[in-house]
Each structure stands twice: as C-alpha cells, then as structure tokens.
C-alpha cells in the first residue's frame, strides 16, 4: 500500500508530538530539525512549572513518541525551499535532497526576544543583567548562581514582560509563560540561596493556568519573594557592578530605587526566524503580531490558508507546554482528516 506522506517542519514539542501522532495513525511522516538534536527550546529548561518536574522527562516522552511510531527524522536540515505544487508539497534542503508530501505541518516555534532591544535594562551592557533563558541554563548546568565577580547574590531582581505587552518594542501581546516562569525561577533562587532577597517587578500577574496561582501563593508565603507592581524604567551599574534599578511602585504610588546584585529579564516570545522564512516560502498568512494566522480564531485553529498546510505550537502564538501538546495533537488530527478527505471548510458559515 502506498502510504500518504506528511512533512513536519520543526523538531520541538509541537513538531515531535504532531509527527508522533500522525505516524502512529499510519502516515509516512518526515520530521525536519535544523539543529542536531530534537527537543527545541525544551532542551534549555531545567524544571517545568507548575509541578517542577524535569524538562528532560518530557523530552524523553516526546522522543519515545517519534521513535515508536517510526517517524523519519532529518536533523541538521537547512530548508532552502518549501512550496506547494498542485497537490504536493516539496521541501528542498541545502544538501540538495528533495522531499515530497501530501500534507505539511509547520512547527517552527518561537525565538526568544532579544533583550538588547530594551537598552535601558542594560542587557549586553552591564555584566550582571541576564535573561530568564540564561538563568535556566545555569540551573541546568548545575552550577551555582553567582555574580560576574563570583559572589553569591544577596538580592536578585526579576523583570517581567521584557519584550511583551510593550508597544515601545512593537510587541503588544502577552507571551503567557513569563509570569509563571518568574514565579518558578524566584522559588528556585530562594531554594538555592535561602538568604537572598528576590524582587519581582510586574505589571500584572497572569496566573491563568491550573496550579499557577498556588505556585504564586507559595512563592509569597513560603519563600517570601517580593512582588512589586510597576514597570522598570531603567537600570544602571553601580561602581561595584551591582545594578541600580529605577521603578515606580504603582501600589504604593511612589518612585522606588534599589540595588540588586543580579537582574533577570523575563524575555518573551517572538515569531521565530524559521517561522517567518518557511511561512513566507509557503505563502502562509501572518497575523498582526507576526505569528501565523489560522483560518478562524475559534473554529479553525491550526488550519492555514494553504489547503493541506497546518501549523502547531508557538509559531501560531505563545503557548505553555501543555497547550502546545494539545495544539500539536489537534494539528495532527486536522492533518489526518484532511488526508482522509474530510471537508471541515464545509462547516464554515458566516453570519
């Protein structure tokens, strides 16, 4: 029997999970990953909110999924062209290899916001300003969190919404994961350095997921993390390398300055370069924020404007891991139903 083929681009959570599901349904699935390892951004996170389970645990689950279902995996792929000709999708790689399929799932994910664009926070200028992703790397490496002088920080500041909900950098959307990541990371800092003081500077705390609120309460009650409502205006370096932050405490209604030894920026998500590149190659529609746009916000999620092309995960919008799982499976389902000639478009009625 000639099996129908599906190309999945992007080997992060969304790509792996949709590939695994499609392959387990009997399709001939090829998964492309630009790096040498599957797992995407998840490889960089140590513990996951809200349960603090290990990120690699989830990677294992995903790995098993693609291997058990016998997904063809192309690593280190450099896709130079992706297009739809007639009913077939063609993907060409830098090494000259060409792949064809009847359907395609784009799971090219997000990039981390470049914190240098918020120059006033001093990332890339002052040594002790790091991003949440870099903090996670430190946790993952098992090394202690130290200032550049090698001292244990006594005070750590955490800045929420860096590159999210910020008209000044052109990103007006919420990246969803940073609030709870900040809560998670502040607990972790406190667990590793119990004597330290951790200050979170937030606009709003969006604890929308199940158990997020519990984690937030825990951070306050058990770990005495300070939550200060107010956006940071600027940070500058003191003589000793510590950072002076200026912020308005909007609950107390007064300007505030304080010194911290390390400042962690909660960087948000932006549409990845890969999403922009391959989405454009395929002629997919992008929404106002630069993420891929589905045919209908409520009823046609994962379905792109190109028949047979679907998308999953954070290339559509910022999402948490469990939402990416749900989205990946939904995209797999939509892809399968397309290949089985189920016409979902038939159901669309506009009033």
């Amino acid at each position, binding site marked *: 029997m000639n099996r129908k083929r599906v190309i999945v681009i992007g080997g992060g959570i969304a790509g792996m999970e949709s590939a695994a599901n499609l392959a387990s349904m009997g399709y001939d699935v090829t998964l492309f990953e630009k790096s040498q390892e599957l797992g995407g951004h998840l490889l960089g996170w140590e513990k996951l909110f809200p349960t603090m389970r290990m990120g690699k645990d989830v990677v294992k689950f995903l790995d098993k999924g693609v291997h058990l279902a016998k997904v063809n995996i192309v690593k280190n792929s450099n896709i130079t062209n992706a297009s739809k000709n007639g009913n077939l999708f063609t993907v060409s790689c830098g090494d000259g290899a060409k792949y064809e399929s009847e359907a395609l799932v784009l799971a090219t994910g997000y990039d981390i916001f470049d914190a240098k664009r918020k120059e006033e926070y001093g990332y890339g200028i002052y040594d002790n300003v790091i991003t949440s992703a870099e903090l996670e790397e430190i946790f993952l490496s098992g090394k202690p969190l130290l200032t550049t002088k090698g001292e244990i920080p006594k005070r750590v500041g955490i800045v929420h919404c860096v590159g999210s909900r910020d008209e000044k950098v*052109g990103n*007006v959307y919420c990246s969803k994961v940073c609030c709870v990541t900040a809560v998670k990371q502040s607990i972790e800092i406190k667990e590793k350095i119990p004597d330290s003081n951790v200050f979170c500077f937030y606009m709003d705390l969006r604890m929308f997921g199940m158990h997020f609120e519990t984690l937030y309460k825990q951070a306050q009650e058990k770990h005495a993390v300070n939550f200060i409502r107010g956006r940071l205006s*600027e940070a*500058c*370096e003191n003589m000793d390398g510590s950072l002076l932050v200026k912020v308005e405490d909007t609950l107390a209604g007064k300007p505030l300055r304080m010194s911290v030894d390390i400042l962690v920026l909660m960087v948000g998500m932006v549409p990845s370069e890969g999403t922009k590149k391959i989405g454009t190659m395929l002629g997919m529609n992008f929404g106002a924020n630069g993420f891929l746009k589905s045919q209908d916000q409520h009823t046609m999620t994962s379905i792109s404007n190109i028949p047979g092309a679907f998308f999953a995960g954070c290339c559509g919008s910022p999402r948490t891991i469990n939402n990416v799982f749900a989205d990946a499976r939904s995209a797999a389902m939509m892809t399968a139903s397309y290949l089985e000639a189920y016409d979902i478009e038939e159901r669309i009625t506009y009033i």
Partner: protein
Amino acid sequence: MKYDPFVIPFCLGAIILAFVLIYKYFSWIFALNKTDKHKILKGIFSVRIFKAIKEVFLESLLHRKVFRVNPMLGYMHMSLAFGWLLLILGGTIESKVHSLKMFNTPYEPIFFKFFNHDISMFSGAEEFKFVMDLLLLFVLSGVSLAFIKRFYSKLFGMKKTTKLKIGDWMALTALWFIFPLRFFAESFTSGIYHNGGFLTGTAGNFFASFLPLENLTYIAWWAYSIALGAFFIALPFSRYMHIFTEVVLIFLRNFGIKSTKEYNSFSEFEIHSCSRCGICLDKCQLLTAARIKDTQAVYFLQSIRYNNLKEGKAFDCMLCGKCQEFCPVAIDLNNIRISKRMEFASGNNNFDYLIPKIEKTAPIIYFAGCMTHLTPTIKIAMESIFKESKTDYLFLDKDGGICCGRPLMLAGEILNAQKLIEKNVKLIKELGAKTLVTSCPICLKVFKEDYELDIEIVHHTQFILKLAEAGKIKLNKSDLNVVYHDPCELGRGSGIYDEPRTLINKVGNLKSISQEKELSLCCGSSLAGIQLNSVQKELVRIDTLKALEKNNPDCILTACPLCKKTLAKDSSIDVKDISELVWNGITESKIVELTQNSN
C-alpha cells in the same frame, strides 16, 4: 469727472476691503503689548524700515522663497503679485500722464481704456500701450499657470495641494476671472476704438471680425468690475488675506517683534499671512508616511483662523519643524502649535518633592537627560570620554536629575515646565560652572532657549569635537561607511548641522543621503507627537529608515538618544550615537598601541 455706473462694484469692494483691513490691523496692533508697540514706533523711524521694504519686495512680490522650492511655482506667484502691482502702477502713471493731473478718480487707472478712447494724443502713449499689454500678458501667464496647477500640481513640484474652503473658492474664482475679463474688456474696446497695444489691439481686431462688440464691450467692463469687487469682498474671508497681511507682518518682524509662547495678536498676523500655498504638505511626514491628512501647518492655521481647532490637531504634530523650514512666509509654526497646546493644558503640578542635592562642583557639568539614561551605551561612552580627556566634570543627573522641562513645554504645559526650569536654573547657577554639556538635543534646546544661563551650553558632539581639536583625545578614523541622521531638535531646532559632521568625518566615512540637514526626516518618536499612535509612529520611522538605509551603510549615526532608540527598533543596520563611535575608536587605538608596545 469721468463716471459710469459699472465702476460701482469695484469701488464698493475696494471700500469694504479697506475698512475691514484697517479695522483688523489696527485692532491687532492695538492688542499688542507695550514693548511691541514701542518697537513699532521706534522701527518706523529707523533704517529698519528700508530693510523691511526690501524684504517685502523680495518675498511678497518676487516670492524668492517660493522660487527656491520650485521655479514654476515661484514664477506663478511672482507674475500674479508683482505683475498685478506693476499693472496698477503702470495704469496710475499712464492715467496721470494722459490727464496731466496729479489727482484723478481712483478707478480711472483701472478702467483707463474705457474712459479714454483716444489716447494717441499724449506723448509716450504707444510705449504705455506696449508696456501695459506686456504686463497684462505677464499676469495672464500667471493665471493660466494657477489654473493648470489646480489640475496638475506635479508640474509645480507639488504632490498635494491644499484643500480649499468655500471662501477660498469664491475668491479664487473671482481672481481667475479678473484678468481674462480685463483682457476681453480692453480688447473689445480696442476692437471699436483701436486704442489697444500689441495684445489687446490684435485681439480686438480679431474679435471685431465676428463679434457684435458694440453690445459686448459694456458688458465686459461690468463683468471686470464685478470680478474685482467680488474678489475684494471675498479677500478678508479667504486665504488671499495673506496678500496684505504678509506685508504688515514683514514690517512688524523687521521692527523686532517676535512670536512668543503665548498666542497673541502678533500670532493673528502670522496666521492670516498664510497663503495656503501648500508647500508644507509634501514636507510633512505625517502626510507622506503616516497618511494623516488634516494636521499639516496649512490646515492647522486654517482651523485656528476659523475657530474650529480640535484638540487632536494641536497634539498630533511631531514639531519636527520641517514645514517651518520651507514656509515661504517663515511663519513660526512650531511656536504657534505650542501656544495652542497651552490652551488645552490643564496641569498645575506641585514639584516641591524635587529637592536637588549636589555637594561638589566642577567647571563642566554634564546633563545626560532622561533619554540618555535609557540608552546607557551613550552614557558610558560619554563618561569614558570625559575620563579619557581628563575633564574635570560633574555628572549632574547621574542619579536622576530634574527633568529639563522640554517634554512639558512641547505638551503646552508651559507653567509646569517653568517650575522645573526654575529648579534647574537655581541649581546650575549655584554650581557656577562654565560649560553645560548635554547628550540630548531635546534638553539642549530648552537649556538654550528658556534657561537664561550665562554659561556656554553645548551638545556633546560639539564638546567632543572641541576636545579633539584641543588634542585632549585622539580620535581614530575607522573604515566604516556611515550615514548621519539629523535629530530634529539639534538640526532644525538648534541649527547644529556642521559639528556632528566634522566629528563623524574624523571617526568614519560620512556618506551623504538624499534628505539631510534642513531636509532631514523625523525618527517618528518625537515627544511632541502626543496624540500619535504606535502605528503612525512606526510609519514615520520606517519612512526615515528607508532613506537612511538606502545605500546600505555600515552604521547609522545620530546624535540623539531618542532617535537612536527609535531607529534601532526596526533597523537592520547598526544604529549608534556619534559618541559611541568616538569611544570605540579610542579603545581600539589603545589596543593597537598596547600590542605595538608589547611587540
């Protein structure tokens, strides 16, 4: 006395016009403050009056500044203004020579050919005929160009022309009719009496060959008189009010009267001097890039004049000053906009909590400004340059100083701005420094214009250049090809174009771009653009970046932290402040020196 009823419309129009103008001008002059009135009295009896007359001749008649924008447009304005005046002067002389009287009825020169059929009697009559016809042709060429411009403005270098009000249309139509009607009236008369020159004479003979001129001539004179009368009556209510007002304005300006931050009756002279030529339209990025069609200087002044200014129109302008740079009447447009913002200003804030504390002092004080604090690389570069040059300086706002006041000023909150200025002035005076250096052109402008400090106030580009010229720092020329973005407040705002360029040429290769210096574009984030939304700002920003990135330079340089921050948002090319490039050069040369020494 020569009289015919057809002169009534003309006379009536002229009398009404004279009364309206005299009433308006006198009431505005009356409302001026004492010092300004005194200036007028002093000015009238001084040499300044000759300067004013010269300027009136060059600008109101020859329209020199319009010529600079576009020669066709200049010719059109000149032929109408200067041509018409010459026609009046020529007619006056002609009628006086003819009648050999010092005084005749005021309308006689205008309708000379109607009243004087046999004009070959006096000496020079032929020459007069020729000159008067030539002048009429001159004016008619202007009218035809004005007509063409309405439908094909691109020919005059204008993409957009002003949308007109009803009053303008009435006056415009009358104006269009005046000279063709004069041409017909004189030609018809000449067709019967052969008193025309090369133009009206020839045309008269031609018309006589197929038209019943005996009936038409009188009608044509009536029509000519009505067109004149209609134009005069419509004039004070239309844009043509500028014809006379600009003349008065030029005199007042030459007498030393300036626009102030507050809207006053001098502002009335200014807004009535706007001819709505629309030159400002194409210069405005809010129109060309952000597609805002109703806020340009011409519409803004119009809405003040007709008392329907809406708050949005006062507050969406970026005050980049480009329109002002090209205004042929040189109206102080930014000042008028700020003065109108004042009318919407609300606040009377209490800044008592701001208590400046400075212990030491130094001959040079550095005021980075809030935007520089938000772009720390500039601040670091400046501090390093100060240290490198061994400058004894005090970083006045290191731990957050008091705002310079310019943002409030731009918002029309002059009272609040004044309070901040007072605090800073007191502080700076106490310090007794010689020089005030700032990194922010926004601060620079307010320091220079509103602080009344008796010390040298310089932008950091000027200061660094001086350090380099005095040999206090050694600059290192890199191979980078750079372009320079003139910040509005530094360039058009403070007239500083050359020092930044001289400095850049010492540290890189400055490439010129299509829109620089007076023509430079705004980054889009001007603090003045209070009502602009992020999309509109982005459109301006992208427009500006397109011009800067055109020849793919290695680096875009600017001299304003706000411009830098704004342009960096969307630029694919590195955006830096000049000070950063200077400091990079110094550190690089040090590294070279170190390696050479170790070798």
